[in-house]
């Protein structure tokens, strides 16, 4: 992993603390992610991993701390700002638009790239039409990449779980993000589906150079894929480093990993 060409820091999290009422969800978390890296966040359930992603996204606003993304430091960000600055994500419980087809869902991912105003849209000629076709091509590239051509026009609500997760990945990819946040992308999948998803993640990282932050419970996946791993437990930061380091860290073993049985 050390031969990988990792760039400068793209995202830095400084002393983030988040509480809901008296419940402290994140306690003084600091870490960074380098451009082109695949970073994993692991920890037991309720550790605050999704909440951390939500903070990066701008969905939750931390009480303390700040985030530096692509050089700009902010205390909090509106969600659509995060999106327009190049952060895309998938969700733990699939957040697809169930009333629309696969293609339409992926096209919504392109919405930040589309600018024509209401008037041209109403007539659907000229700039509106050209823009629609241009983005359709981009969406189709994503569809090809993820091999979901067959379900293009199907309403996503009718798709099996594994395919829905893939479509959600497609929607995130369509936005051509700099930073991709994946929240348990392999939850609920069998080993074949997991292999496919792994392959996609690696391809996205190597072909498009997208930086990836990944929450995952499957340790073999985490250890194989990641450049660095962050471990959270009850909102606190337990460890942060390369997979082998983390695997050997005693606190991590006690809290989460355990030891192999004899």
């Amino acid at each position, binding site marked *: 992993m050390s031969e990988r060409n990792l760039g400068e820091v793209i995202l830095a999290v400084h002393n983030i603390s988040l509480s809901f009422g008296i419940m402290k969800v994140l306690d003084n978390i600091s870490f960074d992610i380098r451009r082109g890296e695949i970073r994993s966040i692991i920890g037991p359930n309720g550790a605050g991993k999704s909440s951390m992603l939500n903070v990066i*996204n*701008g*969905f939750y606003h931390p009480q303390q701390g700040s985030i530096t993304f692509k050089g700009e430091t902010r205390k909090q960000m509106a*969600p*659509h700002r*995060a*999106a*327009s600055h190049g952060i*895309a*994500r998938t*969700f733990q419980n699939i*957040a*697809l*638009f*169930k*009333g*629309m087809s696969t293609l*339409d869902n992926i*096209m*919504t*991912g392109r*919405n*930040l790239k*589309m600018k*024509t105003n*209401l008037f041209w*849209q*109403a*007539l*659907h000629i000229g700039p*509106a*039409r050209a*823009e*629609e*076709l241009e983005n*359709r*091509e981009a969406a*189709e590239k994503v569809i090809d990449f993820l091999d979901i051509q067959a379900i293009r026009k199907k309403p996503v609500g009718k798709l099996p779980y594994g395919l829905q997760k893939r479509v959600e990945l497609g*929607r*995130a990819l369509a*936005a051509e993000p700099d930073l991709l946040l994946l929240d348990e992308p392999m939850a609920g999948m069998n080993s074949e589906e997991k292999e496919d998803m792994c392959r996609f993640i690696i391809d996205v990282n190597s072909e498009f150079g997208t930086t990836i932050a990944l929450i995952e419970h499957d340790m073999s996946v985490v250890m194989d894929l990641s450049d660095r791993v962050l471990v959270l437990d009850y909102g606190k930061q337990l460890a942060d480093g390369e997979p082998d380091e983390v695997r050997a860290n005693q606190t991590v073993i006690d809290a989460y990993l355990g030891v192999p049985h004899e």
Partner: protein
Amino acid sequence: MFYRETGQFKANYQDDQALFPIDQDRYVIFAVLFITFAVVPMLLNQYWLNAILLPFLIYSLAALGLNILTGYCGQLSLGTGGFMAVGAFSVYKLMVAFPELGFIPLVLISGFITAAVGTLFGLPSLRIKGFYLAVATLAAQFFLIWLFNKVGWFFNYNATGMITSPPMTLFGVIVTGPEANPVAKYYLVAGFVAVFALVAKNIARGRIGRNWMAIRDMDIAAELIGVRPLIAKLSAFAVSSFYIGMAGALYFAVWLGSAEPTEAFDINQSFLVLFMIIIGGLGSVLGSFLGAAFLVIMPITLKNILVDGFGTNSALAAHIEIIIVGILIIGFLIVEPHGLARLWRIAKEKLRLWPFPY
């Protein structure tokens, strides 16, 4: 057999995204347009026009408007009656003050005025969702009707509070008021509806329509992928009110001829249009038409059967009609909550395979 798609391959995205990619659909639409504009005017009579065709067309326009807001964008609104009133009173004041501008531009301007009002009343939608938003729209409904009743400026201080449409001409033919030419009225309204149905379809299949549906389906996720809820919701309110305002203007000026705010635009109107889009199908242009047709034709048919057929007195018939409307609504919601448009789509699916069962 008749509805097979084999052989109809699309060579580029443009064809695939066309409004009617399946050839048979295209023929049907051309036939419908032909019948609408070439055949029906020949067969018109005053009764059909006033009792069925004009209300159907005008309510279709209103239903399209409400469908944009509630069906596509998921914002429940009970203020349709009030917004129709805004359109009606706008066009009235404009007709009295600036008749030289021409009727069509005046209707469009009324639409824009209603869009502005609608956007204003839509502002709460940024904080409030679901039923709570319905209450906000109810506030709009009751306030607007009260306003048009009380403030004399709106009805030019005449004693009854009613507004009457002055005659306006289009290409030399009178289209509003009691002396209007029925065929002209029909073409005018049908033209409006055809054009704006196309516009609605275009917006719905583009970026703005997708953003609306994204907000409807999961507004949090939509925001997180960069859809700005403010813009999406307010644009839905604006476009929706534009349509509803125009419908109100046509309702008053072309169909009724004169109107009184509490009767013509009260809360029952809001419910009526809402039922139309529910029975017709939320989030569907076709559904808006089907729902409007159903709720315009059904009461008339019912009354004809009950009063003329069985000789029931009209008061009793009115009560029975209410019951049947209620039962039909419940029935529809149980059997096909997605409305007639979904039933139509299912029928088309079956037709594609006909004569094979599956």
